[in-house]
């Protein structure tokens, strides 16, 4: 068997499509059954492909296997279980079962099924982290180990959270109805937020494995594009979210090197930025400018676009960045945003005013556990020439570092204070 042809990504991507179609057939309350059928199909694939080679269209093969398996289950258990409530008795009779299942597995309908599942995962009763983990596993096809590694958590802990979240999801009964425009609009921000959090976990997150982090960013982009391809999902804010992700992800190759080493915006080799992604990001940003809504994603994408426009750090338009952070603060006030604004102020008006802006952050105490709060203070003190004070701040940051790459990054800064 050619390993390259059956990459983990094939199973990962197909898993999302298969679970989505199968929950349509079985109903959300039979989520576990849908997942079993997917695992079954993967096992069969590995067995059969080992003997006969990988089929020409492995993705169609997997879908067909899942479909046939679904039919077996429906026939065997039609008196013992209830299945998709919207299909009523059509799954219980031979008059219609095969064609009803065929209709659901039609590739044209699958993206809608994926959205139904994603929207269901973002149920307001579920905590943010649970929503994110559910989207990653059910829509993204991430395994428990991958999620654990992305969230720097133990396999057992993630397993436990997912089990609880899935139980709650299954109990919520029916799949989210994406045809209801009002419900769609109401749930959309939660879905965007989950996608944004997946992306952020990849971009800023604590996982020391750069591979995992790149995967998270790519998956967030893939699912956000899926959302943008739906008539109701194609809101200005969704386009802006796409723009933000492309523009930030363009910097990923220089932000993290192969060993997971972290580079600040100042140190990055900008020739390694992904030009295609920058072009795509700008395009999304341009197309996001309609309607009256200015979301936080618009502003954050705007900031990323300003960075992308500067081929050298010194060329950055800090005026524009400070102004964008001002807007962002008025839309979505948070201490982390205020901290980023202060850093931009320091670039524009010098370290003294930057430090004053940090001191002016209202709920600054909420940043005490955030390593980059102390690192920012350290950096500005260092630039003011107060090496000893700077060093103390960097040491405080080091004590809070969440992983090896953050530790290395801060140790490098401490060493610079010696000079």
């Amino acid at each position, binding site marked *: 068997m050619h390993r390259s042809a059956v990459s983990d990504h094939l199973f990962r991507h197909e898993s999302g499509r298969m679970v989505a179609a199968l929950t349509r057939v079985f109903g959300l309350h039979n989520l576990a059954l849908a997942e079993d059928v997917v695992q079954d199909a993967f096992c069969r694939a590995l067995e059969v492909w080992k003997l006969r080679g990988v089929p020409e269209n492995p993705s169609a093969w997997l879908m067909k296997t899942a479909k046939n398996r679904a039919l077996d289950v429906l026939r065997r258990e039609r008196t013992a279980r209830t299945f998709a409530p919207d299909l*009523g*008795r*059509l799954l*219980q*009779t*031979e*008059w*219609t079962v*095969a*064609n*009803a299942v*065929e*209709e659901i597995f039609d590739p044209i309908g699958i993206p809608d099924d994926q959205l139904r599942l994603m929207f269901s995962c973002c149920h307001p009763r579920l905590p943010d982290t649970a929503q994110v983990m559910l989207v990653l596993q059910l829509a993204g096809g991430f395994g428990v180990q991958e999620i654990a590694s992305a969230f720097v958590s133990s396999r057992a802990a993630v397993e436990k959270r997912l089990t609880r979240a899935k139980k709650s999801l299954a109990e919520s009964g029916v799949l989210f109805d994406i045809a209801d425009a009002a419900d769609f609009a109401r749930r959309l921000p939660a879905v965007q937020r989950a996608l944004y959090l997946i992306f952020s976990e990849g971009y800023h997150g604590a996982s020391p494995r750069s591979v995992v982090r790149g995967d998270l960013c790519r998956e967030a982009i893939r699912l956000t594009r899926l959302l943008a391809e739906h008539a109701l999902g194609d809101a200005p804010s969704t386009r802006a979210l796409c723009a933000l992700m492309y523009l930030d992800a363009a910097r990923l190759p220089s932000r993290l090197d192969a060993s997971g080493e972290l580079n600040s915006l100042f140190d990055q080799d900008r020739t390694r930025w992904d030009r295609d992604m920058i072009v795509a990001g700008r395009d999304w940003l341009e197309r996001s400018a309609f309607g009256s809504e200015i979301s936080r994603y618009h502003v954050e994408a705007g900031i990323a676009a300003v960075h992308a426009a500067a081929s050298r750090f010194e060329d950055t338009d800090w005026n524009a960045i400070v102004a964008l952070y001002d807007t962002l603060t008025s839309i979505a006030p948070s201490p982390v945003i205020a901290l980023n604004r202060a850093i931009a102020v320091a670039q524009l008006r010098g370290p003294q005013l930057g430090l004053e802006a940090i001191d002016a952050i209202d709920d600054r105490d909420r940043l005490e556990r955030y390593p980059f709060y102390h690192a920012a203070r350290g950096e500005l003190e260092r630039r003011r020439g107060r090496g000893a004070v700077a060093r103390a701040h960097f040491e405080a940051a080091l004590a809070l570092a969440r992983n090896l790459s953050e530790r290395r990054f801060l140790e490098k800064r401490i060493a610079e204070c010696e000079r």
Partner: protein
Amino acid sequence: MSEFLYLYRGGQRGGTPEQSQQIMQKWLNWMKDLTTSGNLKDPGQPLEGEGKVVDTKGTVTDGPFAEAKDLVGGFSLVEADSLARAAELARGCPILEVGGFVEVRPIMKMDM
């Protein structure tokens, strides 16, 4: 509302897989419509053409006696206001397109 049994009789069976997929798609659409209108009480099942017949003497012989054009090919249970309405609804049945017919029979209410 009263209940009626639809007996689907006769009609050509088989054909290529594509043809039968197309015919079954019509059945799906028709039954979806009946579900939406609230008339489909139980979709029932299609029946195989072969079977056994058991008579009063307990003798078992092969196959239903009916001629192919009358052969019961399946059944459903519908709900409708009247026999006339139930018959009206049966006009959409795909069996009519393949030379078969629908026998509409009211379910008898046994007064004890």
